[in-house]
């Protein structure tokens, strides 16, 4: 029994602020070349244990019990100086979630890499330079000589993450901890990075701990798994066993949420109704303000696209960041004026409509539940406001309508006088939906409505949308990057890349048998359990 890494009974607390989640009785065993995944929703404490291991806990955190043994050293007996010099960055390395801010913006990539190498090894600049070049090749970054002289802001998110990995591995650690390393990246890039991490693990002979909220990703990457909720371990074991024969209720719920979203749906015979939206030659350009020294750049956010939407259907627009899908959503909603082309909704040009007329036809639901509601308004006012602005109703009528709508979205009428900060993310999103439907619009545009929510809540909200669609006969346009959400909700799908529509058709056939290269690439990057 290799005593590579063993964490026993670790508990972390934040005294004085009981709102921040703690960790209780955390146990973990890992072999020399093992791979372990830690899965949980937000607040599950999945990162806390690893922060304690790498001594990156915030100052207010206190480790109230537990021991950590690594390579036969009892870590709690090693003082900070010793730890930073001999373990941190040398034997144990960690990579983090947000690559855009993880590198120091004022130093070159080369300097940061070399510095990290020279710090732990007594070598000169030449050798450090050579080693850095080697590492950049290992993480598959092209033009490594050029890269050494570049600054982080000149690289994309995926490229920065590769540099992070290079920095973490340059001193040949025995253990690599990856904390949601791909959550902030596009789906296709995500796949590349995950493959890279797995390759490097084999190549360098390391143990890997992979933390994520995405059960699909973790199941592909790790042989063993720990499922966490609210600071406690719910279930652990070999990944295959836990996923196929889950013992605890929470694990079962988590798995079923994902499975529901990925179920192969029967082909929905959508009756071909009238076209409710017709988009022709739609284009939108952005001129980048001339950064100090370069000439103005023009970006085609949306480049001459055409499509139609039929009444009563749910259409999804899929794409990665920069594909233009959000811009299309804003233009459909009349929040952004197109530079070229026409959008006809119910045979009327959406940009020529009065805002009040437009409000009764099409309404948005946004992604971030924490910025979608004005923090100074009560829930009742937020939902009532569309009526107050547009209809000559009496306050009694308005109040009744608001209560009715609250009920429709599954919120108790007690929420009427509350403020947004008293609601959870899922509840806020329900309020946003209520606000959107109270004017009985014909079309609902949902831009990533559940991407910021936990998986279990996500399913509830999507179910709500499905129910509303049945009850109210609303047409829904769904913007998403998440294939499983798209499959769950929509009959037809549009795939966008760089401002153009690459492929379109009904959901099942387009996604299962993609014809175009990009769609194939997109589908292959999806992780299913």
């Amino acid at each position, binding site marked *: 029994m290799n005593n590579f890494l063993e964490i026993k009974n670790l508990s972390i607390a934040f005294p004085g602020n009981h709102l921040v989640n703690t960790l209780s009785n955390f146990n973990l065993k890992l072999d020399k070349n093992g791979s372990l995944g830690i899965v949980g929703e937000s607040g599950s404490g999945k990162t806390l244990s690893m*922060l304690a291991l790498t001594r990156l806990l915030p100052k207010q955190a206190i480790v109230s019990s537990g021991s950590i043994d690594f390579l036969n050293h009892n870590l709690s007996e090693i003082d900070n100086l010793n730890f930073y010099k001999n373990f941190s960055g040398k034997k144990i390395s960690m990579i983090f979630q947000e690559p855009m801010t993880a590198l120091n913006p004022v130093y070159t990539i080369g300097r940061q890499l070399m510095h990290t190498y020279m710090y732990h090894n007594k070598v000169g600049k030449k050798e450090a330079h050579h080693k850095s070049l080697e590492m950049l090749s290992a993480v598959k970054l092209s033009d490594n000589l050029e890269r050494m002289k570049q600054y982080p802001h000149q690289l994309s998110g995926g490229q920065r993450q590769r540099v992070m990995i290079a920095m973490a591995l340059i001193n040949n650690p025995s253990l690599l901890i990856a904390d949601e390393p791909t959550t902030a990246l596009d789906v296709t890039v995500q796949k590349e990075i995950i493959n890279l991490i797995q390759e490097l693990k084999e190549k360098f002979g390391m143990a890997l701990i992979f933390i994520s909220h995405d059960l699909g990703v973790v199941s592909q990457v790790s042989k063993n798994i720990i499922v966490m909720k609210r600071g406690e371990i719910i279930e652990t074991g070999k990944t295959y066993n836990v996923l196929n024969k889950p013992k605890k209720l929470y694990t079962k719920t988590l798995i079923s949420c994902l499975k529901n979203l990925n179920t192969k749906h029967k082909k929905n015979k959508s009756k071909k109704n009238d076209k409710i939206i017709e988009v022709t030659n739609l284009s939108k350009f952005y001129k980048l303000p001339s950064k100090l020294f370069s000439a103005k750049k023009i970006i085609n956010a949306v480049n001459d696209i055409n499509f139609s939407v039929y009444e009563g259907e749910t259409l999804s627009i899929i794409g990665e960041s920069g594909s233009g899908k959000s811009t299309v959503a804003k233009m459909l909603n009349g929040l952004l004026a197109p530079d070229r082309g026409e959008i006809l909704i119910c045979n009327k040009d959406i940009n020529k409509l009065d805002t009040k007329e437009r409000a009764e036809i099409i309404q948005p639901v946004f992604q971030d539940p924490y910025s979608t509601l004005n923090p100074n308004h009560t829930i009742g006012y937020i939902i009532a406001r569309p009526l107050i602005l547009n209809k000559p109703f009496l306050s009694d009528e308005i109040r009744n309508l608001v209560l009715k709508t609250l009920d429709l979205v599954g919120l108790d009428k007690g929420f009427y006088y509350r403020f947004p900060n008293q609601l959870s993310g899922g509840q806020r999103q329900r309020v946003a939906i209520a606000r959107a439907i109270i004017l009985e619009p014909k079309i609902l545009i949902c831009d990533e409505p559940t991407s910021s929510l936990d998986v279990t809540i996500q399913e509830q909200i999507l179910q709500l949308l499905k129910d509303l669609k049945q009850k109210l006969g609303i047409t829904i346009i769904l913007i998403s990057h998440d294939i499983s959400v798209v499959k769950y909700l929509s009959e037809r799908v549009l795939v966008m890349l760089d401002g153009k529509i690459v492929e379109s058709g009904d959901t099942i056939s387009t996604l299962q048998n993609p014809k175009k290269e990009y769609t194939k690439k997109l589908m292959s990057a999806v992780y299913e359990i």
Partner: protein
Amino acid sequence: MIFELFAKRLFPQAFNNDLSELEPKHIFLRKSVNHLGFKFGLTMLLIIIFLGIFGPHIIGISPYEQDLTKRLLPPIWVEGGNWEHIFGTDGNGRDYLARILYGTRISLTIGFGAAFVGMIIGISLGILAGYFGGWVDQLVNYLLTCQLALPGLLLAMTVVFLIGPSITVVILVIGVLHWTLFLVVSRSATQRIRNLDYVLAANAIGASKYQIIFSDIIPNILNQIIVIFTLEVGIAILSEASLSFLGVGIQPPTPSWGLLIAEGREALFFQPWLIILPGIALFLLVVSINMLGDGLRDITDPNSKIEIKSKVEVPISNLKQNINSKK
């Protein structure tokens, strides 16, 4: 302290419930009760305001009454002082305590007045620039640069000297020269909020631009504006004192503190209290306002780490040494 008792009596719900269930104004109250600077600043400010308004009546002496037989009497703690003139008298035999108390009114009036003028100018321009962007923003930027480049004190001196020093003129001049901070803050806050989803949603449900500005933007920048307001009051008070000190502000016999210091300058070495006392008054007033402002900033900042003591204590047994101590 007493503050907490007051707050708890008036708003009991703020203190009973779990933090996640509180309304915004209750959260404010909870946080303010724990902030020492805020309480101290507010208390001191209220005391000073009270002294300024009621002080002269309480002691019953006029700040203008001259008695040339009793010039330059020292205050009570210096040899030769007596209880009739606790702070002594100035060069014209006027009671110094009365003059200083009365000066509170001058400083407060001009301070709040000028800050108010600056606020109106600054936030109007700032919100317009932040909301509309484009050429409006460019124009406002240009105005801002012009204003910043202007040697403020110099221009204030010139204008007051030329038009004539009255309280209104001083308030207007200082106000018109001190709107830049309001502009910068309200513009960046407006720009930030304009892009938030709830503003887009307001647009989608049919709100007009002005409805959005008044209902969505202004209430959400108010807390930052109030913080700037308190700081600017302090700045305005010091500006007036400087102008009066140089002779181009409030004119004698009105007892502005700056003027008192100027008058006392001749007797600098022999009767230093003439200079020290009004200076202390200025210091205390501005310090209390600044502490209040800083406290407000800490309390209303959503990212601040003010701890709000909660009812449920986390049980921690066997607290071992923190594995992860500093740095």
